[in-house]
C-alpha cells in the first residue's frame, strides 16, 4: 500500500527526490527561465510524478501534448499514448484514474466540446484528473486565438475550474492543483484554463522549482471511492446505472450523489485558499472603479489601470483566479465600495459578468464589457475608453485603430 509521506526524501527512477510539496513550492530556490507556455506545461509535468498522460495532438493550439511525449521518452511519465479523438482521450483518462493513476491531459476549444460528456462523469466518479484547457474559439469559423467561451460550459460540470493569467500561474498551479484535487474530501477533476495562444505561444520569464525535486506520488488509497471495483459504483454505473431504475430510492441516491459532488467542490475552497493564497487577488479596492477579470484580461486590465493613473483616474483590480468554487463572498467584499465594476472578457456572451451580477448587491454597477471574441486582441485603450465613457469623460474614438 502506498504511503505518500513514507517516500518523502527518497528518489524516483530519474533521480528526482520526492519532496514535500509545500516546501518545494514555497521554500525551494527558483531558477528564472525563458519559456513558452507550452514549454512551461512540460516543465511542470517533469516535476509532477505523473503516472499517465493521454494526448490528442492539439497543435497548433498548444505543443504541450507533443512536448510531454518527449518527457515520456526521457522516462519522466509512467505511460503516454495518443487517443483517436478528444472524446476517446477523456474516456481513457477516466480508465487510468479509475485504476489509481495520477492522470494529465490537455485540450482546447472544439476538443473540449467534443469531450464534454466525460467531464460530469469524471466529477461523478470522483476522479482527480488534471486537464489543461488552452482556450480557443469553439465555433465556426475556427480560431486558435484566445476565446474563453468554452469555460462557460465547464462551470457546471462539477469540476474545479481555475483560470491562469500567466505562464508562472500555469507552472505553479499545475503542481498545486494536484494537491487540491487529490485531497480525499475533494477528489475531483481540475480544469486548469488559460487563454491559449497568448499564454501558450509567447515566451515569458518563469521561475521554476529545481528539476531534481518532484511531487510525492498519488496515493489512491485515500480516494473516497474504491478504485477499479467492477461490482461497485462508480465503475458499476457504467454498465448498470441504478438511476435507470424508476423508484424513489434510485432518485434519492442520485440526488444525494450529485449533492455530494458539489459539496466536494465547496470543500475544495479551504485547500485552494491555502495553496493559491486566496481565490482572488485585489488591488486598490477602495477605488470607485474596479476592473474584475480572469485570465489574460487581468493583464490587459493592469495596463489599463496604469494608463488611467497617468490621467489621474484611480482604478482598482480584482483578479479572479478560481471560478469553481466560485469566490462569491470575496468578490462581494472586494467590490463593496465600487460605483462601477468593469468586466473585460475574451468571449461573446460575457459569462463572467453574469456570474458577478448574480453574486453582488446592486448589480446594475456591473458593466459587462468590453468584450472581444473570435480571437481578437483587447488593447488596454479599449478598457480605458469604456471606463472614461462610464465616468462621463470625453474619449477619442477607437475606430481608427482598424
Amino acid at each position, binding site marked *: *500500500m502506498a504511503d505518500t509521506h513514507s517516500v518523502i526524501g527518497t528518489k524516483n527512477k530519474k533521480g528526482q527526490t520526492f519532496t514535500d510539496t509545500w516546501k518545494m513550492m514555497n521554500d525551494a530556490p527558483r531558477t528564472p527561465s525563458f519559456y513558452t507556455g507550452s514549454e512551461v506545461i512540460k516543465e511542470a509535468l517533469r516535476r509532477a510524478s505523473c503516472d499517465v498522460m493521454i494526448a490528442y495532438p492539439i497543435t497548433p493550439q498548444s505543443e504541450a501534448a507533443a512536448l510531454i511525449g518527449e518527457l515520456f521518452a526521457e522516462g519522466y511519465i509512467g505511460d503516454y499514448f495518443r487517443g483517436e479523438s478528444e472524446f476517446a482521450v477523456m474516456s481513457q483518462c477516466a480508465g487510468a484514474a479509475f485504476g489509481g493513476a495520477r492522470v494529465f491531459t490537455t485540450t482546447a476549444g472544439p476538443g473540449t466540446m467534443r469531450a464534454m460528456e466525460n467531464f460530469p462523469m469524471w466529477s461523478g466518479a*470522483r476522479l482527480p484528473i488534471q486537464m489543461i484547457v488552452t482556450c480557443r474559439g469553439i465555433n465556426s469559423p475556427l480560431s486558435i486565438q484566445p476565446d474563453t467561451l468554452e469555460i462557460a460550459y465547464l462551470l457546471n460540470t462539477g469540476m474545479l475550474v481555475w483560470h491562469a493569467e500567466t505562464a508562472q500561474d500555469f507552472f505553479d498551479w499545475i503542481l498545486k492543483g494536484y494537491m487540491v484535487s487529490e*485531497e*480525499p*474530501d475533494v*477528489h475531483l477533476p481540475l480544469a486548469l484554463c488559460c487563454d491559449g495562444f497568448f499564454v501558450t505561444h509567447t515566451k515569458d520569464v518563469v521561475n521554476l522549482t529545481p528539476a531534481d525535486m518532484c511531487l510525492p506520488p498519488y496515493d489512491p488509497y*485515500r*480516494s*473516497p*471511492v*474504491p478504485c477499479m471495483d467492477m*461490482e*461497485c*459504483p462508480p465503475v*458499476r454505473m457504467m454498465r*448498470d446505472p*441504478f438511476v435507470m*431504475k424508476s423508484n424513489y*430510492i*434510485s432518485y*434519492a*441516491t442520485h440526488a*444525494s*450523489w450529485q*449533492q*455530494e459532488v*458539489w*459539496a466536494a*467542490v*465547496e*470543500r475544495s*475552497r*479551504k485547500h485552494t485558499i491555502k495553496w493559491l493564497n486566496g481565490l482572488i487577488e485585489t488591488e486598490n479596492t477602495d477605488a470607485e472603479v474596479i476592473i474584475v477579470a480572469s485570465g489574460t484580461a487581468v493583464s490587459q486590465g493592469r495596463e489599463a489601470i496604469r494608463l488611467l493613473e497617468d490621467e489621474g483616474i484611480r482604478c482598482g483590480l480584482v483578479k479572479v483566479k478560481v471560478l469553481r468554487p466560485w469566490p462569491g463572498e470575496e468578490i462581494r467584499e472586494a467590490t463593496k465600495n465600487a460605483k462601477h465594476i468593469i468586466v473585460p472578457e475574451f468571449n461573446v456572451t460575457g459569462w463572467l459578468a453574469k456570474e458577478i451580477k448574480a453574486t453582488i448587491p446592486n448589480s446594475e454597477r456591473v458593466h459587462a464589457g468590453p468584450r472581444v471574441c473570435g480571437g481578437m486582441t483587447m488593447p488596454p485603450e479599449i478598457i480605458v475608453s469604456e471606463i472614461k465613457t462610464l465616468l462621463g469623460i470625453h474619449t477619442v474614438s477607437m475606430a481608427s485603430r482598424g
Partner: protein
Amino acid sequence: MGICLPNPGEAHINGVIVPEEKAYEEAAKQFLMAKVPTIFPGPLVLWAWNEKAAKKATAIRHLYNTLKECVQPGQTPMLIPMPDYRPKYPKINPEVEINPNHPNLTIWHNKIDCCMFVGVHCHQANLALKIIRGGTSCYTIAMCAQAGHEDAMLSFRDASVEKIMKLAEWVRKLKGTVQPRLTSAKSGASN
C-alpha cells in the same frame, strides 16, 4: 453542504468545530442515550486487506462489546455491516446489512436511533449519511479515516485504532451517568 471540515486534532458536532476530546464525550453520550446504538463497519475494516484494517476491526469489535456491557436493560446495541456498495434489487435484507443506496431501510427496520459509520469510503459514507439525515431522525456519527464528514451530526477525522479504543474508554467512563431514551413512545428512527 460545504461546511468547513475539522483540522487534525479537531472534530465537529452539528457543524461546529470542537476539540476532539469534546467529541469523544458527546459520541459516548449519544451511544448511551440511544435505544438501539449501532455500529456500521464498512469494507475498509471488514476485509483484512492489510494489517491496519485487521487491527481496526478488532478495535471496533471491542467498542461494540463495550457498548453491550455499558448499556442498560432495554437498550439493544447492534453491529450491522456495510459489506459493499453494490446496488441491490429489489432491496437489501435490513436485518443483516446496510447499503449506501438505501440506508434508511436498515435504520427504519431496526429502529436505530444512533449510528456510527466506520471503514466506509468517504463518498459512499456521505451519500448514505445524506439519505439518513433526509429520511430519518437517527443521530449519526462518523469515525472517518480521512478528513471527516459534514453530513454526519458528529464527525471524527483521521480515525485510527487508538481513536476507536479511546471512544470505547469514554463509553465505559460514562456508564451509568447517562439517562437512556427508553421512555420515549417512538423510536427516533422514524421519519
